[in-house]
Every structure is written in C-alpha cells, then in structure tokens.
C-alpha cells in the first residue's frame, strides 16, 4: 500500500497535464476543467490525510521502480512519509483546494493555466515533503519554485507583479543553486544522495570543514525560501502582488516548507554528525528571534493589507524557526501544530482580503476605513482569524505556541515566551486594527503614506471588483478554515501522538533503519526527553494575554489621535518608517547583496560554533 505515496505526486502532475491538453477542446465548457482541477486537489488532500493517519504507527517508505536498498546501501530513489511530512503536505493540499474554490468566482476570466500551475505547485510541494533523496529535494524545490514564479506574475501586464516575480525568481534560484553546490559537495564526500545514507556515512566519519560548508550551502537555499532575516526581502514583494488566492499558498505553506526542509536536512543528515551542539541551537534561535521581531515591526507599520499579512508571515516564520531550533521533541511538535494553525488562519485572512478586493476594489487600509461595514460575514471571519493569529485560546496557534513556550521554559529560555507574546501582539494588533477600521469603522483612519497608498491602489485589475454581493464560493472556504483552526485547539488528547511523531522525526538512527533496512521502529529514541503536552496555566494566560494585548494595541492604534496627550499631529514611527523603507528597496541587487552578506556572517558564526 506504499504506492499511495507515489500517487500523491503522480495524480496532480498527470491531472495538470491532462487539463492543459484538454483546454482547447473545452472552448465554452471551461468550467468543467476548473471543477475537475478542484476535485483533483481535494482528492490529493484526502489521500495525504490518509497517509498521515497511516503513518501514525510507523513511517512508510516507497522505492521507485522497486529499487530497494541492497545490503544497507540505497541504490534507488525513495519517498519517506512520516506524520509531520504528510501532515504538512496535506495542509498544502487543503489550502490549494480552498484557494481554487475561492477562485471559481474571483477572477474575471480565469485562464486554464492558472489551475494547471496550481496543480503543479501542489505536486512540487508534495514531492518536496515526501522525498528521501537530497538531490530530489532540490528538483522539487525548483519545480515548486517555477510554478510559484509563474503564478506570481499571473498579471504580467503590470509593473508590480512583474517586478515581484523577478525578485522572487532570482533570489530563490540563487538559493537553489547554492543548495545544489552543497549537495554536490556532500555527494563528493559520501558518494550517496539518499538522506539516510548520507547521514549514516558522515556520522561514522569525523565531520570535517567540508561537511560544515555543505551544511551552510544546503541551508542557504532553504533559509531564503523560508524568508529568514536577512534573506526575507523578496517575500513581501512577491506576496503583495501575487493574486490573492495564490498568496494563501505562499504564506500558508511555501514559507513553512523552507523550514521543513531545514528540519528534515538537519535531523536526517547533519544533526548527529554535528553533535546537536548547543551552539547550533543558539545560532538558529537568534536568527528566529531576529526574524520574528523584524517581521512584526514591518507588519505593524504597513497599510497595504496584503503586504501587512506578508510581513506577519515573516514574523511567524521566525517563531517557527525558533521552535525548531530548540531541538526538543515538544518544540518541534509545537511548531508543527503552530504551522498548521497559522496556515489555516493566514489563509482565511488572505481569502477575506480577496473578498475586500473583490467587493471594494482596494487593499489600502486608509482608503478602506469604514467602507467595509456592509461585509458583515467577511468582517466576522476576518476578526476571528485575526484573534486566531494573536493566539487566542483555543485556536491551534495557541496550542502550538504554548508547547514551544513550555519547552523553551523547561530548557532555561523563559524569555522566548516574552518575545513570542510581543510579536503576536504586534502582528495580531495590526490585523485587528485593519478589522476594526475596515469592517466596523472604529476610530480614525490611519494616516496616508503616499508610497504605500500608491502600491495598494495598484491592486485592482485582478478581480471583477464592485460586485454587489459576495458569492458563497468565496466566503465559505475562509469560514471553514477558521473553524478548523478553532477546532484543532480541542485536539489536546492527540498531543502525545503529535509529540511521538516529532520524536520519530528527530530520531536519526531510527530514520536510517526505516529507510535503509525497512525496519519499523515502535520505540524511537529521542535525543531530548519527551515533555508533557498538557495545557499549562501559563500558556493559557500567555495566549489570552497576547490576544487581549493585540486588541488593546489595535484600539490604541485606531483611537490614539483622540487621546488628549497626543493631539499634536504627530504620527508614531514616522521617522522609523523611512529608515525601514530604505531596506525594502525593491531592487534585486540590494536583496542579493543582503543574501551574500547574510551567508558570509552565518558561515563565520557556524564555523566558530562548530570549531
């Protein structure tokens, strides 16, 4: 039954080919093809969910062409599915289904290639999650990338999408090539491309400088994909201009895939050889915290709703990286749940933004102030999703972040909780400020920033705006996503199962035995002790506190001009805004310079740490 793993990639790829071939045959009846594409995405989602539940007992391995390992040496190419990898892939499939359903009425004229690209994108994501081969990781990375670049420039007749897609494609391609160089080096050293095989080899031989260089190079592509500061600049450009349903996938899963790649590569190849040193943990914790704070600050000052959500994604990517960097099972389990909750909630927020764009024809928060009063249902969904983003119990975001906090606290990092709370308040506050201003007309409109307003007003032609009512196909997907994120918070009885999955993910000898010897381990060995997955009072207080803090911050941002002390015409953070804007120049050469500088620094620090 392991063939299911291959089907999860083959089905969307074949369907994409069939749909693009059948496109010309269905001149008028294009809707049939759209429906078929949605059906395929939903089928893949079900398939991946089945795989996820099947792997709860033990990881599944599928060898293409039946080339099983001979005497412990991998000669074929494998797919390896565990609950976490299959879970991430099924999250992607669910979001693709939601986004394509949303698109049914969203675009004026949706071309067939939109659905084809979405299916290829989904196949790339699934392959990336399931592959057990390091070179295929690069291939799926680029396949996913090419579909994503093309989707970003869905409206190539405008400046924004074109520029965003160029920046996105060039930065990510550079990252992919650096990763490939690392893969070539590691192949030269080990003679293997299978991740388990490489891991076993470099564990048995003393790791030299070459292994560290290869580690850094492979990570670089994944760090760029996951938008970790200072490699994050492309993200806001691309997210702000891609069609809104595509942003759902970019923010909901694509960024997280980079982080998944980092975790996969670390736990199946390098972790044991590098000795799981505290130094590695510290480096990535620092990167994560930096990203979380920078993303949150950029998020709060933004007036372009899509860019605002994009910066919030950067902030969350930093928090996820910090969760992974704890190197504990509970930290990883918490990150997995947090990623799922965040993906669902963020997708709902983007879809609601799509509805705003569809009905009101703008994503400029200042202009929209008070104009969204008629969108009652959308307003409720958006507000709930915003509260979910601010970790209100019992959303899944709260559950996942609570686990990360618990694990950090148990390992002598209680300050991480404070960082998380501040970032959640800033990003949640920004989203709730939009909700309060646009849908309920609270307070005063935020001041106009000419550059931001121009960029926001550019966002028009992708949708047939000015419609009198919201189609059901547009409001139901976000509502369901928020409901699922809410319901997932009640899955606390499944906590031990998620943690067991995380332990299995982090058990490198177990992974090697599963892949290379076909063993099914019932008792994986964790490198750090399992911790309680119960909900602590502290985490409830932290979650409720950050949601309340976000609400207060949002109200302050809306009403601060009416406060007697501040009625001076002063806009908080104006000086800061120009400084921050200078970093986000939109010019590709600046971004590449940052990438090179960042890699040089990261390389230096890693060398020092691993000396």
């Amino acid at each position: 039954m392991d063939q299911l793993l291959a089907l999860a990639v083959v089905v969307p790829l074949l369907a994409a080919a069939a749909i693009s071939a059948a496109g010309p045959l269905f001149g008028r009846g294009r809707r049939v093809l759209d429906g078929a594409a949605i059906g395929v995405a939903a089928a893949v989602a079900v398939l991946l969910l089945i795989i996820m539940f099947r792997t709860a007992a033990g990881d599944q391995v599928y060898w293409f062409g039946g080339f099983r390992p001979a005497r412990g040496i991998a000669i074929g190419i494998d797919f390896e599915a565990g609950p976490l990898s299959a879970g991430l892939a099924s999250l992607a499939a669910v979001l693709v289904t939601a986004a394509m359903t949303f698109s049914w009425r969203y675009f004026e004229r949706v071309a067939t290639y939109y659905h084809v690209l979405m299916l290829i994108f989904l196949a790339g994501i699934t392959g990336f999650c399931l592959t057990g081969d390091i070179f295929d990781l690069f291939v799926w990375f680029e396949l996913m990338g090419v579909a994503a670049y093309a989707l970003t420039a869905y409206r190539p007749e405008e400046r924004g999408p074109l520029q965003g897609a160029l920046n996105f494609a060039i930065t990510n391609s550079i990252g992919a090539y650096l990763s490939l160089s690392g893969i070539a080096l590691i192949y030269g050293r080990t003679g293997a491309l299978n991740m388990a095989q490489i891991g076993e080899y470099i564990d048995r031989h003393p790791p030299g400088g070459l292994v560290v260089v290869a580690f850094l190079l492979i990570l670089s592509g994944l760090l760029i994909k996951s938008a970790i500061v200072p490699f994050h600049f492309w993200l806001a450009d691309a997210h702000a201009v891609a069609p809104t349903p595509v942003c759902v996938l970019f923010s909901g899963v694509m960024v997280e895939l980079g982080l998944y790649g980092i975790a996969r590569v670390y736990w199946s190849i390098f972790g044991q050889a590098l000795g799981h040193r505290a130094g590695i943990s510290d480096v990535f914790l620092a990167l994560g915290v930096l990203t979380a704070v920078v993303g949150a600050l950029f998020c709060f000052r933004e007036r372009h709703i899509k860019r605002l959500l994009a910066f919030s994604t950067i902030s969350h990517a930093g928090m996820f990286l910090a969760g992974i960097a704890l190197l504990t099972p509970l930290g990883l389990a918490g990150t997995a749940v947090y990623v799922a909750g965040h993906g669902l909630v963020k997708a709902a927020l983007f879809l609601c933004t799509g509805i705003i764009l569809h009905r009101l024809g703008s994503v400029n928060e200042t202009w929209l102030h008070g104009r969204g009063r008629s969108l009652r249902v959308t307003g409720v969904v958006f507000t709930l999703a915003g509260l979910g983003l601010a970790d209100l119990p019992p959303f899944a975001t709260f559950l996942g972040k609570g686990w990360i906090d618990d694990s950090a606290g148990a390992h002598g990092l209680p300050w991480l909780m404070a960082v998380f709370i501040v970032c959640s308040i800033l990003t949640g506050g920004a989203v709730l400020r939009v909700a309060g201003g646009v849908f309920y007309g609270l307070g005063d409109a935020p001041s106009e920033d000419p550059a931001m307003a121009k960029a926001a007003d550019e966002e028009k032609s992708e949708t047939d705006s000015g419609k009198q009512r919201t189609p059901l196909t547009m409001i139901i997907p976000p509502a369901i996503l928020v409901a699922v994120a809410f319901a997932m918070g009640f899955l606390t009885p499944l906590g031990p199962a998620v943690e067991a999955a995380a332990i299995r993910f982090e058990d490198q000898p177990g992974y090697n035995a599963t892949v290379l010897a076909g063993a099914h381990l019932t008792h994986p060995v964790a490198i750090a002790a399992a911790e309680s997955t119960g909900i602590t009072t502290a985490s409830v207080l932290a979650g409720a506190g950050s949601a309340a803090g976000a609400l207060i911050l949002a109200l302050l941002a809306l009403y601060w001009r009416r406060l007697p002390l501040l009625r001076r015409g002063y806009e908080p953070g104006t000086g800061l805004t120009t400084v921050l804007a200078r970093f986000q120049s939109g010019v590709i050469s600046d971004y590449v310079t940052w990438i090179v500088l960042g890699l040089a620094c990261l390389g230096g620090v890693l060398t020092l740490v691993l000396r």
Partner: protein
Amino acid sequence: MAYIPFIVVVWILMVGLYGIVTSRDLIHLIICLIVVQSSTYVLLLGVGYVTGAVAPYFYDVPVHTPAVDPVVQALALTDVVVEAAVTALLLAFAIQAHKRFGTLDPHELASLKG
C-alpha cells in the same frame, strides 16, 4: 592539482554574483544567473571526475576499466533542464517588462510606481 576545479567553481560563482549585484539590465542579470548556475555544473563534474578514466558507457571496454562517475552527469543534465525552465520564464518576464514599461533597468523598474 585536484583542487583547481574547485577554485574555478568559486571564481565562477563570485563573478556571477558580482554581475547580479551590479547589473543595470535585466537580460544581463539573467545571464549572470546562468553564470551562477554554471558553477554548479563545474562543481558536479569536478566531483565525479576520475583521472585517467573513460566516459561512463560500458560497451566494448574491458571489465574493471575505471570510468568517471555517471551519477553527477545525470545530476548535471537535470540541472540543465531546471535552468532551461527558469531562464525561459525569466526572459519572458524581461520581454514583458520591456514591452510594457520600455525599460530593462531593475532600478528604474523598482522606482516606477504605478
């Protein structure tokens, strides 16, 4: 002498990155991206090279003849395919940029709001 290919790899990579950072023309920039990728071809082939070995097709040669590693060649071919797709897409973007906005300068394209 075995390290010479790797010096070449680093050199090509740096030249390509320098070109991307200083480029004022999209076509030039895309070519520089190809240069960056070319470093991976040299690296892959350098990794698999065996001095004095034959090309890896095992027809009409005695058994146990040393051959260079065929796997890296397969990887390099896959790499070429990936590059073809990415480059084609990027060049299509560049053509669109030139058609619509009459410029290929990334700086002008970035400052051209609206």
